[in-house]
């Protein structure tokens, strides 16, 4: 942890009026750079790693920004991972990736109305209420959505931002479960998270995650 750059400067150096609102750098204008790295292009998901909702600063401990390959490898290595997807999964591009992850053998919890898009995709998907799910994940007694045992790694995407953020705060503080966010927006309450991403970068990042998963 270098903690070199604070999440946001209090006021820019050239500030003259305290009550002037900070002029932020536009997200859209800072596309994730694709860096040439040996042969292949790498999507950088660690930029803009600040809570997407401005006020959503939980405290001194916030998610480490993570690259897609690292998340993918962790998912691949996990003994019993769970992917939670929410009501924003109906988007075709996102849905495709989620299905791929399901096809790679990751169990899916469809929260909100995500099941509507996922139910007929032939993956191991279960409806769950996100709030209840967060509660169950904090319970070492819980045997999972299929009764076959608890999860050691949780990853999620596509849930209403603040809703996911709040639910994950339960896991952060009251569970032993590791949480990686592969959502489009930075989630401070996860252990690791992507930064705030443009749609195309997000999709590309998901593809990189999928690349790390075992092919089935």
């Amino acid at each position: 942890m270098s903690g070199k750059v604070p999440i946001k400067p209090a006021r820019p150096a050239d500030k003259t009026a305290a009550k002037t609102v900070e002029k932020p750098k536009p997200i859209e204008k800072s596309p994730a750079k694709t860096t040439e790295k040996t042969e292949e292009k790498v999507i950088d998901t660690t930029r803009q790693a600040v809570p997407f909702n401005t006020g959503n600063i939980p405290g001194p401990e916030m998610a480490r920004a993570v690259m897609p390959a690292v998340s993918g490898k962790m998912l691949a290595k996990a003994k019993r991972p769970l992917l939670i997807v929410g009501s924003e999964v109906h988007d075709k591009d996102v849905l495709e990736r989620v299905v791929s992850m399901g096809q790679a053998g990751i169990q899916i919890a469809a929260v909100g109305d995500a099941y509507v898009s996922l139910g007929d995709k032939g993956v191991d998907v279960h409806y769950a209420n996100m709030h209840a799910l967060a509660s169950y994940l904090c319970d070492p007694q819980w045997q999972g959505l299929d009764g076959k045992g608890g999860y050691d790694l949780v990853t999620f995407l596509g849930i209403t931002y603040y809703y996911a953020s709040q639910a994950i705060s339960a896991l952060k503080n009251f569970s032993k479960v590791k949480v990686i966010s592969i959502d489009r927006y930075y989630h401070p309450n996860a252990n690791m998270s992507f930064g705030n991403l443009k749609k195309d970068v997000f999709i590309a990042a998901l593809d990189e995650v999928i690349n790390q998963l075992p092919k089935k």
Partner: protein
Amino acid sequence: MIIKKGSFVIEGLDNVQINIGKIVEPGQESIIEGPTPRPEIISLRNWDYRILDRYHPVYTPTSDTCDYCTYGKCNLTGNKEGACGIDLESQSAREALKTAIMGAACHSAHGRHLLNYLIRKYGEDHPIDVGPSNLKAPLTETIMGLQPKTIGDFLPVLEYVEEQLTQLTASINTGQEGAAMDFESKALHAGMLDLLGMEVADIIQISCLNMPRAEEDTPMAEIGMGILDSKKPVVICVGHNIAAPAYILDCMDRDGLFDKIEIAGLCCTAHDMTRYNKTAKIIGSMSKELKYIRSGIPDVLVTDEQCVRADILKEAKKLFIPVIATNEKIMYGLPDRSNDPVDAIVDDLVSGKQAGALILDLEKVGELIPKLAMKIGPIRKARGITALPDDVEFNKLVSKCTKCLQCTRDCPQSLPISDAMAAAVAGDLSKFEILHDKCVGCGRCDYSCPVDIPVLNVIEKASQRVIREEKGKVRIGRGQIGDPEIREEGRNLVLGTTPGVLAFVGCGNYPDGTKDIYDVVEEMLQRSYIIISSGCAAMDLGMYKDKEGKTLYERYPGRFIKGNLLNTGSCVSNAHIAATTIKVASIFAGRKTKGNWEEIADYVLNRVGAAGVAWGAYSQKAFAIATGCNRLGIPVVAGPHGTKYRRAFIGKPYRKDEWNVLDARDGSTINVEPAPEHLMITAETKEEMMPLLAKLCFRPSDNSLGRAIKLTHYIELSEKYMKKMPDDWHTYVRSEADLPVAKREQLMKLLEEKGWKIDWEKKKITEGPLRKVDVSFQPTNVPRLCKEAKK
């Protein structure tokens, strides 16, 4: 000799003044029927623990730190302890208690303000009249163990509430309670006090101000941002307390000004204005406050208390709209003009010398407002003052947008504002029109924009077309549900043949606009649920029309009977919704009420298929109401923003032994289906909410017909909106008789696939269900209510 309350001196005993506080008539003494009249923190702790042992408090902190005291800030991340020894779990529970206290204080202080004021005006002996009810004040009777006859009888009730709230507030101080469970028990206590405070407030205003008394066919009031004739002077009352607006309405009535001045309300004051005088109109919920002020239409703003934006004076000042504050709770730093002559005040406001005035003499407010409106209205109209940009400006503003998304990041609903900006540049305002409905009007975006676009004004400007058409209808608040209605419907509710009572209450912080609850309510009405509403939710339900141009209120009648849509009234009228379940227990089932909270709540939890929905709950008050309902055994569902309350009560169906109840007939333990499954939970979308609501209406007491009806809706709603059979539908099947007739065979096949044994010849389930249907089963969670225990 007639003795009334007061004091007298007996001849020859001149130094003795006898104060008569209460006249006790024979046979009318309050008879305490239960063990806990006037419960203190400890009194219902056992009940709280019973429900908390099943419905687990789940914490979703908004902050991992605590800065209550000067040892802090303490970092509690990972449930660490702070300097005082509190950990994040207990701190989060403390926050829940704090939130519930604040909400309860709000309603109770509102009730106290009204009570002191109404006693001054009508006397302590003014009788309570709430309509056709013997059980006039169900919450008061259940909690206090007394039956109030006059408004003065509520004095000890509020004293009790205030004493208990002070005890609870003491508990949240640093160095007090240490256990999350006891914080929660205290929060439930606060929630119960909140229900009581609300009941007092609404009963006394109904009784003194002639508001509708359990009337099922109250008239319709107009609602919407488009209903007023903005050419006339416009008076807008903002808040929750009818005391001041009542005077204004009286003066306008007396002087025949309803044709000359438009008067309407924002937030719950609006409900109560229409209940007081059906000429009044409703602009809308709190979400409309900033929008309507920015429009420049109001010529005078009158504020009272609660859900009044903190920046109203600042915003109004810019638009030369004078603000008259009429309540100590919101004074905005305004000069106190209570003792000044009306004309002097009007002059200072019309001349712009002062931006507003604090006037606590409500009679004076009544006199002043129409005068002020008539004077300042024409001036303001002439100047055409509005905050909204004109077309040229609008075009300039939308083209300035850099799509940095900062407004989206600051928006509570993360609305895609820049997309709408882009579309507007291309001449398409439709995206803004959609935003207008979804936008809660908070104005945070204005502060976000790095290129200084006044975002909210732009949204409103772009939506002028839809705003002009924003004209709906709300059935004026009816007050309580009368005893005869309960008598008629109680049985259906307890047996399940009416699939459930759903209360749509609370505020407008909806995750996806106001229309969601309209859609849900329409669906549930078509399915014969009873829908009761109040407050901002009741307003928002009246905003949409079907193809024939009819609102839900016009399509569905307002009786407490299946498939009806009721509006009880303002926020404090929520008390009646909760109280309805007490009435069912009392009137239908003959349960004793006075001082008997636990037994009543136990009855409600196990037998009354009622659930609350606070889809847009934002305030501490909504949380207090929900928590009070929870203590009464009523489950509540909030929208996704509800997770920011930091605490829910969630059941764990997989822990089978937590779903044991007792059979009151013999004290035997029965393992039952998870019904209701949760006490307080959220959902992400309306699609998810609908089957959840159906499920939360299951009760162990359902008879087979009722269970089949409830199951039908649960399955159908899940299939319709979630594209699946619910995973747990079979959990609720006790025998083939519980299965909807139309689908019985099909469902039995599914059960067989799950491993259940079916005797296909007899068309009977022979193995599988958790328990059998037993029509005389008396489910209870309270050991002392079992026959064995009573011996």
